[in-house]
């Protein structure tokens, strides 16, 4: 294959150049991600829907875009992504009740559209309400199906490694004319 012929002909300088190219791509991707975190105010501005509890609006594998502006008030009807204290998995559900004090302290209850009951069973033992600190972000935009790739990579790690290997090989071996 011509690709491997190129590889043999590359000298050290060209190899370093390819590696730097690769590093630049990785750094740019990281910078874009960090930039999104800053702009949206959310620690996780893009999340994949993992369960069917918000069907038929969102299905497993859909992608959600979040913002988490500090001054954005939490109101009934909004779709929030939150994490229960002590657990890593973000949950995407709707706010159905809020009680807000004059100083801005708010406690609220959530429920998945497709669930029969509210989320109290999901909260921590003894916890009846969620607070602002539990919120990862508010769902502002949505793309169907796109997140399926992440779910597949999670469920089949071999696929993830294969994909990374192919991407790595392509970048390292690609020659700029």
């Amino acid at each position, binding site marked *: 294959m011509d690709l491997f012929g190129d590889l043999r002909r590359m000298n050290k300088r060209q190899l370093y150049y390819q590696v730097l190219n690769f590093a630049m791509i990785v750094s740019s991707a990281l910078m874009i991600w960090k930039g999104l975190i800053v702009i949206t105010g959310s620690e996780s501005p893009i999340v994949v829907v993992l369960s069917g509890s918000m069907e038929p*609006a969102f299905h497993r594998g859909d992608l959600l875009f979040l913002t988490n502006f500090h001054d954005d008030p939490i109101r009934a009807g909004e779709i929030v992504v939150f994490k229960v204290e002590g657990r890593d998995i973000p949950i995407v559900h709707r706010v159905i009740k809020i009680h807000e*004090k004059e100083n801005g302290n708010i406690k609220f209850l959530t429920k998945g*559209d497709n669930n029969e009951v509210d989320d109290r069973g999901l909260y921590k033992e003894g916890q009846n309400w969620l607070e602002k600190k539990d919120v990862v972000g508010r769902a*502002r935009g949505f793309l169907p199906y796109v997140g399926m790739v992440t779910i597949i990579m999670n469920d089949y790690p071999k696929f993830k490694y294969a994909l990374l290997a192919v991407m790595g090989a392509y970048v390292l071996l690609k020659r700029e004319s």
Partner: protein
Amino acid sequence: MHEREIMRKDNLVERSDLGFITFDITSIFDWNVKQLFLYLSAEYSTKNNALNQVVLWDKIMLRGDNPRLFLKDMKSKYFFFDDGNGLKGNRNVTLTLSWNVVPNAGILPLVTGSGHVSVPFPDTYETTKSY
């Protein structure tokens, strides 16, 4: 609009005979609207909390469903609990209808309908038989 509220000692409010509501929202559905999530929320202030919002009823309406709704004699879908005793004698409970537009792809707007209904709550509890 006829209302009849029953307030029990443990702050449970059940609203029956919610009158009838007609609305026609055909104009909201366009090629990029997959579904609408409609909900009726009650908003009020109490001594304990400056702002309370409680969703009493919701409905999912998919593109293709009949967009003209005529709801009569609906029971409140969710129990109307207050955080405290703030419903007794509360004259200023406002009901508004809002909806969440879920597109096929894109932005998820939350829209509140114009207009609202004010529902005053009675000053005393009513004892009712338990179920």
